[in-house]
Structures are given as structure tokens and as C-alpha cells.
């Protein structure tokens, strides 16, 4: 079993340059492993072939769950489990149940969405995701190519990285 993954790492100085580089590299039929950047690069997702995130769907589902739980909780508690006669007013007073249902919707949507995000992205306390070049969090834009998943030779790909504007190209072996 080969435990090591070979990465070709290109360091870029500018977000527009790396975005153009990604387009050029993919045009050459080279698969890009991932791009690491200090801030989100807007417009890079379609270039890298990433589909829209469906996290907002998750948020909606969690939110609607919150609404249903909160609303039915109030109806059951106030209307059936322990009905109280308050001046003869209706026990299931729907307008009174709006604020708590609303707050629970927001709470469930936010927590559920954030939790989903952390799980799908593999983030969490103590998690260590692959950092090929620590300068990604400062001012450099890092493009990683998984060498074994591409047909071109390492040299050709290194030249391609340089030609598209990478200021440094290095080879890194990462043991999984």
C-alpha cells in the first residue's frame, strides 16, 4: 500500500492570477487537487468545477424542524397536557406561539447548518487538515496537484504551474 500522496505545490502571489491559472491548467486536462487561499476567491468555484453548496438546503430543513418542534411543543403543553383557563381565552392561542416558534427556527437552522458544515468539511476541535504551505493563511495562494492522478509528467506539470504564474513550485510527499 502506498501511504504517501505526491503533491505538486505551486505558490501564487495574486488571487486573479491563480484563478486564471486554474482555468489554464484545467484546459490542459490536468486535475487540480485543491486551491488554498487566505480569503475566499470569488468566481473560482465554477473554474474548479465545484457545484453550489447545498448547505442552505440543510439550513432550511433544520429550520423547519425547529418550527415544527417548537409549535407542536407549545400546542401540546398549553392545549392538552396542562390546559389553563386564563380569563376564558383560548388555550391554543396561535399568535402567542409565534415568537418561540420563530426563535427555535432560527436556533435550529443556525446550529444545524454550522454543524453540517463542520462535519462535511471535516473541521472541528483537534482536526488537522492538510496544510501544504502554511503561508496560505498569510498572503500566498497555493495550488496543489495530485501527481499520481494525472497523466502528464511531473516536469510538464511543474512547467505548467510556472508558466501560469506560480512563483515557487515544489514537490511534497504527504503520508496519509
Amino acid at each position, binding site marked *: 500500500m502506498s501511504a504517501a500522496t505526491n503533491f505538486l505545490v505551486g505558490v501564487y502571489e*495574486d*488571487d*486573479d*492570477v491563480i484563478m*486564471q491559472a486554474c*482555468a489554464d491548467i484545467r*484546459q490542459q486536462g490536468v486535475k487540480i487537487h*485543491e486551491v*488554498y*487561499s*487566505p*480569503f*475566499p*476567491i*470569488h*468566481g473560482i*468555484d465554477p*473554474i*474548479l468545477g*465545484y457545484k453550489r*453548496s447545498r*448547505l*442552505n438546503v440543510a*439550513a432550511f430543513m433544520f*429550520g423547519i424542524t425547529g418550527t415544527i418542534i417548537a409549535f407542536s411543543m407549545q400546542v401540546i*403543553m*398549553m392545549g392538552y*397536557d*396542562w390546559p*389553563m383557563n*386564563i380569563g376564558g381565552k383560548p388555550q391554543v392561542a396561535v399568535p402567542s406561539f409565534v*415568537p*418561540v416558534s*420563530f*426563535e*427555535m427556527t*432560527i*436556533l435550529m437552522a*443556525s446550529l444545524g447548518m*454550522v454543524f453540517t*458544515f*463542520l462535519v462535511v*468539511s471535516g*473541521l*472541528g*476541535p*483537534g*482536526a488537522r*487538515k*492538510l496544510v501544504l504551505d*502554511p*503561508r*496560505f*493563511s*498569510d*498572503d500566498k495562494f*497555493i495550488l496543489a496537484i495530485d501527481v499520481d492522478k494525472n497523466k502528464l509528467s511531473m516536469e510538464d506539470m511543474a512547467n505548467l504551474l510556472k*508558466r*501560469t*504564474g506560480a512563483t515557487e513550485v515544489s514537490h511534497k510527499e504527504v503520508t496519509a
Partner: protein
Amino acid sequence: MQVTSHVREPLVTNGKTWKDVTDDICRQVEGKPTTTWYIAMFISVLLFGYGTYCLYRTWWDGIGRWGLNKTVGWAWDITNFVWWVGIGHAGTLISAILLLFRQKWRTSINRAAEAMTIFAVFCAGSFILMHMGRTWLAYWALPLGNTFGSLWPNFNSPLVWDVFAISTYLTVSVVFWYIGLIPDLATIRDRAQNPISRFVYGILSFGWNGGAKDWQRYEAVSLVLAGVSTPLVLSVHTIVSFDFATSLIPGWHTTIFPPYFVAGAIFSGFAMVLTLMLVTRVVFKLEDYITMAHIESMNKIIMLTGSIVGVAYITEFFIAWYSGVEYEQYAFINRATGPYWWAYWSMMTCNVISPQLFWFKSVRRSIAATFILSIIVNIGMWFERFVIIVTSLHRDYLPSSWAYFSPTMYDIGDYIFSFGLFFTFFFLFAKFLPVINMAEVKAVLKSSGEKSSEGYGKVIHGVAQGTTAVPHHSPGKSDV
């Protein structure tokens, strides 16, 4: 794609690069605390300590330690609660509503404003717990199955709605703030020299590696959190105002309370943000990030919300007269001319007249004037809540039960407690976490930095020329 006018002032001055942003903001996290920080921390802990003593007496002996009487049953406790919750509205407003409106100037103030929000909500929550008297029974407000014959809280009560609103607000604010911190914590982790801080910031940064897919999800999360926080922030103070508006007390039973309270909350919250940021920018030498343009923008919001509050005060008075309800009329005449006239007129001066000074550009752009006015606004907003609560209560329907409220040292001490709590947390935050959102500032640097007109990064861009011709994807430069 969002186009930024060249006429706009740059949001980051002195030609900062991405590297400079990292260095300038990480400096105070990595270096030793300054003497100023130690002095500030010492004073905060002192206030916190004295406040804790007063709080201990209040809890041990009961809220009879306060100056409350049979007529005035709510006074400083609820005043302070509403005041702190109001202050706690600016952070989410800046990070959520201004994000939806694509106001880029929020990027250098949102982190500190959100932190301030969280600490202000802690303070607000502490007053709710104190106000309960028997704090150890606070869980009675929650719908927990219990041994009293499954007796549930009354969901028709705004006080129960408040429990849900405040706790949701606190939770969502903390989550929003923390998600925003993750990329910056990774920056600190990657720069850390000693193993302890590398380990601690490593855990705190959740293993972030800045991958494009993660950034995409991160932005989706930020946008949805902003989307849900916007109605949340409006709902929280609306529900706080329901605590009064749904009662039948003249002076409280007012339908304009929800928008009036929300405007007041934004008003005082921005004032508190300004007070803190004007100090922070000098102490941490962040004048290039929190610029005059930021201060002026915030002053404009203070002027707008201050005017809304002013209109609300006048409307209330007018409606009291127009309603023809003599109790309502008396409550308002009594506010302005009765024994609490001084509180009413302090409120009117601080909240209605003082923000109007911001119509003058020279005042809006003066740091000294902004600092003084930001404090005056918060004094005024404290008086607003005091006026609403105490003047509406102190003259009951029967003249025999009319009373006057005077605070005891425990009322004051518990208020001091909240200041100690707030500033202790704020200074700890300012030392150990990045006070400015580095990732977001870096993202707007090209379009809004001082070098943007010269085309920052264009020089390197030329290198990419000569490669295979592909349709150039226009960079969608928006900060959402």
C-alpha cells in the same frame, strides 16, 4: 459583480498589502501585553471584584438589598438588562445586516463589534438572573418536564418569549462570531512560534486549511447566518419591548415600542462600538484599518437611529394626548414635569439633541467629538430605559401608593459588576484574539484598499499572459 466607485474613500489606508494586514493584526496577539493593557485589565478586574461582592450580598440577602419598594418593583435591574441587550444589537447588525447590504466598511469593525455583542448579552443575562432573586430556580423558566405535575411555563407570556429570544440570540451570535474567527485563528496557528500557542490555536482553528471548497461552504454558512440573524436581531428587541408593551401600565402599553426599541438598540450599540473602537484603534495602532471613513459611517447611522428615537418620543407624547386616555396623558406629563423630570430631560438632551450635531461634517469627522457623543448617547439610552420603567411605575393608580425610587449601593454595585464583566472579557478578547477580521479585510483590500486605483496586483497579473487562451472569468469582487 459589485462595482466600487473610485470616489469612495479607501477602507484601508497607507497602501497596506495582505502581508501587512496579517502582521499588523497578529502583532498584538503574539507580542507581550502592553502596560496600558495591564492597567486597563487591572481596573476591569477591580470593578469585577467589587461588583461580585455586591452581587454576592444581593444573592445571599435577597433583592431587598436593592432600593425597590412596593410600587416600584422593577428599576435598575431591568433598566440595565434592556440597556445591555440594546448595546448587544450593534454587533449582529454590523455583521449581518451590513453584510446583506454589502457594506464593505463593516469588515474592519465586525469582529470587535460581535465580541462586544456577546459580552453585552452576558451582562444582560446576568441582570435577568439577578432580577429573579432566587437565581437557582432560573430553570423554572424553561419547558422542562418536572415533578410539579408537568406544569409548563406559560407560553402566552412575553417573559417566556424573552428566555427563548435572548438565549437564541446569544447562541447564534457566538456561533456566527466563532465561524468568522476560524480562518484568522488558522493564521495565528501558522505563525505561532511557541508550541503552546501553536497547540491552543491549532485546536481553536478547527484544522482550517483554506481550501476552495471549504471557503465556498464557509461563505454559504456566513450568508445564511447573516440572513437568519437579521430577523433574529430585530425580533430580540421586539420581544424585549413586548415585556412592556403587552402590559396595561400607562406608559408601557404602547404599540410603537417594537420599532422604537430596535432603533434605540442600534443607536446605543453603535455608540458603544465607537467608544470601544476609538480606544482600540489607538492602543493597537490600527488607524489604517479603522479609518475616518468608518467613524463617519457609524456616526451617520447614529444620527439616523437617533432621529428615529427622537420621532418615537414625540409620537408617544402626541398619542398620549390624542388617545384621550387620562391615565396615559398623566403618565407622560408626569414624566416630563414630575419628580423624575431630571431623568426625562437627560434622556431628551442626550438622545434627541446630541446626535443632531452629527449633521455637521466637522463633528462627524472629529474623533474627540465622536468619543464624547458616543458616551453621551449611552448615558441617554440608559436614562431612556430608566424613564420608561420607573416613571411609569412610581405613581400608581392610588395616590396613597405613590413612591420614589432611590438606588442603594447594591443597585450601583451590581451595575458596576456588569461593567467589570464586560471590560474584563473585552480586554481578554483584545489580547488573545485578532480584533479585526483579517480574512475579510484581505478580501476587500484590492477593491477598497488605497492601492486599488493603481490596480494592486496588476504587475504580477502580466505573468499569466501568453498561456492558452481561455475566456477570462471576471472576478466577482463582492464580499458576500
